[in-house]
């Protein structure tokens, strides 16, 4: 019930984090033509209408962390094909394509960096890799990052972007929901903050596990966030979905997220918040 909506659809004009093919990009919301250089300077938020372009994991961490502070940790763990999964093409072929496209073994990038000078451990999901779907590698890397944060005594900041669990690893994908939850226990036990940022889209198993048990949950404006995808809901209940349903602002109204925060404010917001939660004076 996870990958249905995003996995196959392409919106190349929205993949601002991928290689930008031209000098400018059209904003899908206000249709304004934007110079890519201006867009990047604005953290890939449309300066005209505030539309938040989707970001790949590397761009995400560039935007979030203090400049030049990122040190990657993920990358050594690689996916396999435990079920010998075959649909319209073999799973290994899918993986190879996604790996070639992103230059990444799987749909997550983790490491360390600083925010406002404060050392943090981070994980960013990569929607450009198989719709950010969560299989064994995503689960393992997030678990390791959380465990690293606990060992190193840093806050853990995770950016979610996922269509849900990865079908091609079936129940093994499902188990990542429990595995990541287990790994996050060390942070709670040590009084270290865990912050999740839900970006467009965050649905399925990710929403029903690590992304929503954070101490503080932020959402990006307009992001689609939910457990069941809108299409599945519509099929089940045969009912019109209300305007703005499952959008970040809707979730704020319904008490599910701590705030909807413009991407351009993320670093300042986290600097302020983490400083208090860790009882330190920070701000670089």
């Amino acid at each position: 019930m996870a990958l249905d909506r995003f996995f196959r659809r392409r919106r190349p004009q929205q993949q601002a984090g991928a290689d930008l093919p031209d000098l400018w990009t059209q904003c899908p919301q206000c249709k304004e033509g934007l110079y890519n250089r201006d867009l990047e300077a604005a953290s890939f938020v449309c300066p005209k209408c505030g539309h938040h372009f989707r970001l790949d994991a590397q761009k995400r961490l560039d935007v979030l962390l203090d400049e030049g502070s990122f040190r990657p940790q993920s990358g050594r763990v690689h996916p396999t094909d435990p079920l010998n999964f075959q649909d319209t093409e073999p799973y290994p072929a899918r993986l190879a394509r996604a790996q070639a496209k992103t230059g990444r073994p799987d749909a997550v990038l983790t490491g360390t960096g600083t925010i406002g000078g404060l050392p943090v451990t981070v994980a960013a999901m990569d929607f450009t890799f198989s719709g950010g779907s969560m299989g064994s590698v995503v689960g393992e890397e997030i678990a390791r990052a959380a465990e690293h944060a606990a060992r190193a005594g840093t806050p853990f900041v995770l950016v979610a972007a996922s269509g849900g669990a990865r079908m091609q690893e079936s129940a093994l994908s499902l188990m990542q929901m429990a595995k990541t939850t287990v790994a996050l226990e060390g942070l709670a036990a040590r009084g270290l903050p865990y912050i999740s940022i839900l970006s467009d889209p965050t649905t399925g198993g990710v929403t029903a596990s690590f992304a929503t048990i954070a101490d503080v949950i932020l959402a990006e404006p307009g992001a689609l966030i939910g457990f069941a995808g809108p299409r599945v809901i519509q099929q089940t209940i045969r009912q019109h979905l209300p305007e703005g349903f499952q959008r970040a602002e809707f979730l704020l109204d319904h008490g599910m997220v701590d705030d909807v925060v413009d991407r351009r404010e993320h670093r300042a917001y986290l600097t302020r918040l983490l400083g208090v939660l860790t009882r330190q004076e920070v701000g670089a």
Partner: protein
Amino acid sequence: MTAADTLTKLEARVRDLETTARETGQNLDAALTPLRAEVQRLRAEKSANLSRWDRVQLARTPGRPTALDYVERLCTDFTELHGDRAYGDDPALIGGPARWQGTPVMLLLQQKGRDTKSKIKRRFGSANPEGYRKAVRLMDLADRFGLPVVALIDTQGAYPGIEAEERGQGWAIAESIQRMVRLRVPAVCAVIGEGGSGGALAIGVGNRVLIQENAWYSVISPEGAASIIWKDAGKAPEAAEALKLTAPDLLDLRIVEEVIPEPPGGAHLDMDAAAQALGEAVSRNLADLAGLDGDELRAQRAARFRALGAFTES
């Protein structure tokens, strides 16, 4: 004639003879006994040759025992506790204290309903957030009173409704998983029919996870997978093959510790025998865990789930 046709015919003859015996008062055991034995043999043979899709269908057979059918056969002193103390009571996910073959436990049950009316009321076992929040509350009680948790899983998934989303379906499932990770009492989970997605895992974080022979457990239903892959829910049989969702598959993947045998032909053909096997398996696993203290139980459960996944490392 195929083995399946033979089986169907023999089953009909057994029923005829049983009826005749009842009507005439004659003892026809001399004839019935060998016939029944042959039926059992053919059922076992059939079971061994079941496709994954066959098993999915068995897991959905009308008349397959529901969680409450097992509770009625295995438990005494069950007190159903209602409500999440915040919004509502969910009839799709129920529970409360009981004695499981004599042992005090806290039950968590996904209950599909046994007739049309109760199936609708219980949304075919698809819980709303209230169900998962009630589960969290019952796990709090289990910890407080030192009651092992016994969870019977039987759902196609959490309910995908507008209101469920409004009230945080994902959040509720995540909290239930987290609460179960933190339990300081033994938790034994058994998939007794369908184990669909996060809605099943929400009460599936056990020290031991068992599954009945003809139950399935997967990240997505075969229909859901088929809709995504082939845009055609009718290709569910193919999706079932690909998803490796049967009990033997899950045992291979170490996602379950044990496959609980069902009576030949499926649990619905002999509920008492099915209950006996389930009862024994759960009780035995509870007994195994009885020696561990709260820290050990929590650590064992954490280690069990931390280890799941398939990857290589360079």
